[in-house]
């Protein structure tokens, strides 16, 4: 059974850069009809220097600005309200810079290295999104990019919590971003043209970014900030049922919502291939809503969970009600592994001294939600 000690990190701000969404509050759907034809969220970005940034970076920057502002970490002028050293970045993206790599190698083949632009060099390195977000906002704490396959987004949220628990930073901007372009469709084997079974439809891929701010409870109290949800136990295992069982063993409360993994055969509650570990909670399939989201999925799930939990705060007596997020199907779906993460409502955060400043206090092992 979980206690208040389980929540050593909380979510204090959300941002989304997805066509058709007016903001992160819409993440749970449904999407408006024709959402793919809505304004491109990167059009929100202003200023110089955008020309040489890839789509993933621009999507990430749009979502990051909103999340930092929502958390109160930036003011009306965009300036940081906390020391830059106290803020880390963890980005999750599996395909973010595939377009730069593919376009550059094509250019070299056709016209030699002379036809390339040296301005593109930093974008060949897969950390480009996290770095530009840090540069834009002066975030000088630990800066990580996870390219970890289907589980990457949930792994990123957990690494944010670990960076806080280890005392390296007090809050972390977590980004999940994947662009939809020709290179990503090539790598993922997703047709760019209509498919034979349904000539009117082109398979969708997620094209966007979601951001959330993970912060120590002590920091939230010190800033007088409001939080939406708490980050609970996490596990990464070879099998989906094992990952779910591992987090459930540390939180036995009711699962109010299950955000399911992407699955090659689609997920209907709960898919046979995923085993019985997830129980019979109501299923929310964000990949079905937005298209396969790969490294963005876990962050998308956690942001949607925060919206769902925040919407129920104070409305129900059952504080132990949690959202289960799981990504990667592990053995059942031939992914390399599966990750599971529980998120709980704001009321589960202890107000006691057990979640004081992470720089000076050891975080209880149980609260870290072991990575092993």
């Amino acid at each position, binding site marked *: 059974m979980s206690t208040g000690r389980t929540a050593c990190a909380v979510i204090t701000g959300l941002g989304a850069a997805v066509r058709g969404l007016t903001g992160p509050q819409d993440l749970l759907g449904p999407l408006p009809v024709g959402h793919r034809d809505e304004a491109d969220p990167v059009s929100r970005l202003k200023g110089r220097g955008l020309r040489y940034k890839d789509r993933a970076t621009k999507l990430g920057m749009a979502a990051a600005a909103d999340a930092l502002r929502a958390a109160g970490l930036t003011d009306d002028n965009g300036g940081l309200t906390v020391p830059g*050293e106290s803020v880390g*970045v963890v980005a999750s993206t599996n*395909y973010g*810079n595939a377009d*730069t*790599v*593919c376009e*550059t*190698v*094509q250019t*070299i*083949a056709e016209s*030699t*290295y*002379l036809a*390339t*632009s*040296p301005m*593109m*060099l*930093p974008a*060949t*390195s*897969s*950390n*480009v999104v996290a*770095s530009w977000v*840090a*540069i834009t906002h002066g*975030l*000088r704490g*630990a*800066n*990580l*990019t*996870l*390219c*970890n*396959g289907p589980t990457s987004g949930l792994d990123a949220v957990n*690494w944010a919590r*670990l*960076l806080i*628990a*280890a005392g*390296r930073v007090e809050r972390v901007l977590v980004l999940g971003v994947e662009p939809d372009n020709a*290179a990503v469709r*090539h*790598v993922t084997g997703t047709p760019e043209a209509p498919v034979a079974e349904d000539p009117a439809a082109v398979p969708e891929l997620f094209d966007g970014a979601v951001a959330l701010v993970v912060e120590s409870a002590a920091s939230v109290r010190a800033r007088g900030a409001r939080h939406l949800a708490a980050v609970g136990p996490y596990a*990464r295992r*070879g099998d989906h049922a094992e990952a779910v069982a591992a987090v459930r063993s540390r939180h036995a409360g009711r699962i109010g919502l299950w955000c399911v993994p992407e699955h090659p055969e689609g997920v209907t509650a709960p898919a046979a291939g995923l085993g019985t570990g997830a129980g019979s909670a109501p299923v929310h399939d964000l990949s079905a809503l937005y298209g396969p989201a790969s490294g963005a999925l876990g962050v998308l799930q956690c942001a949607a969970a925060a919206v769902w939990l925040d919407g129920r705060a104070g409305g129900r007596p059952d504080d132990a009600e949690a959202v289960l997020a799981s990504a990667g199907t*592990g053995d059942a779906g031939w*992914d*390399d*592994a599966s990750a599971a993460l529980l998120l709980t409502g704001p009321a589960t955060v202890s107000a006691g001294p057990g979640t004081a400043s992470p720089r000076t206090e050891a*975080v209880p*092992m149980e609260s*870290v939600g*072991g*990575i*092993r």
Partner: protein
Amino acid sequence: MSWIVTGMGAVASIGADVEEIFDSLIAGRSGLGPLHGYDREKFRAQVAYEIDDRPAPGVDVPLRATRWLERAVAQAAADAGLGDDLSEVPVLVGTTLRELRSVELSWRGGIPFDAADLHFGTMLRHRFGAADTHTVANACSASLYTLALGADLLDLDAADTVVVAGVDTITESTYGLLDRCYAEAPDRVRPFDRERRGMLQGEGAVAVVLRREADGPGPGSRVHARVRGVAVNCDAYHSSAPDAKSITAAVHEAHRRAGVRPADIDLVMLHGTGTPLNDEAESSALGTVFAGLSPSPYMTAIKSMTGHTAGASGLHSLVAAVDVMRTGTIPPTVYLDDPVDAVAGFRLVRGGTVRPQEPLRLAQIDSFGFGGLNAVAVVERVADEALRHPMHPEGGGK
């Protein structure tokens, strides 16, 4: 808290294991050679520090980085007595370019590539049964970043043993864009030399097994070195130009975490890429950190022989530092003939190896990457006494 290195493995252009690489470093043997992988007519630069394992010149094959990583992890795991079963051990892999070379081959040449192989967890699961694996794409500081993260996992009691690793191959896109950046094509990596022209990439992989010192070395019973502290930060300044002030902060933090003063550092394994901006930022930061110390710590830059192995470079330097402290022999920075003024006060090893009279006890390892990602580690030599009498009685030497 401190952590011990109980296993090491590495591959690079200058050797197929830790011992061979160090022998090459001591011999001043460089891995520089003619460019093998690509059509040389497309580039002005014609050389790199490649691992020569392609089927024929100009004929490239996918998943080379994955195979090197597999070898390095297998070496380190065997060295630590873990065998091939890493099912209970987190494996953190630092990289700049992942398997993006395979993506290039697939995009332009139609060579089949499975998206699942972009991250290294797929191989690690198949080969070692490892399920808790993380591909950390943190540019050229990536493997020292994973060292910091691995130490944190041990610190937080989230694992008892961790494998941290680094790997990189050369992508054609990065090679071409680097070629576009410099006034003249580099003909070799010449850190801190007036004739430096820029950086050339190297290939390789490296892995280290890490445990809490209080727990002892585990099944392998060997202790190669003690990790005293690892600092990480981000310049938040520029996508490719480093910030000396931020690097200085990272070095100071590494010393603070290690509980040492600048005067305690005997050896600095320089990042030393041979690019003017990197060299100037690093020399400026070290000038600040070691101000007033005469002589300075010994310093050397092994990229002059390995090339810039990118995400693997930080741990490549760390593994070399362990052997330097063990043998008391410091390899030279080759091709450093005419040092720039900024390093005039530094005790840079050049020309040939140096064997100081005094023992080398503490090494600082620098590692900096695109996007201003900095990681600095402090590693300590383990006394011979500790090697003869493993701290943990369960260490059976299997």
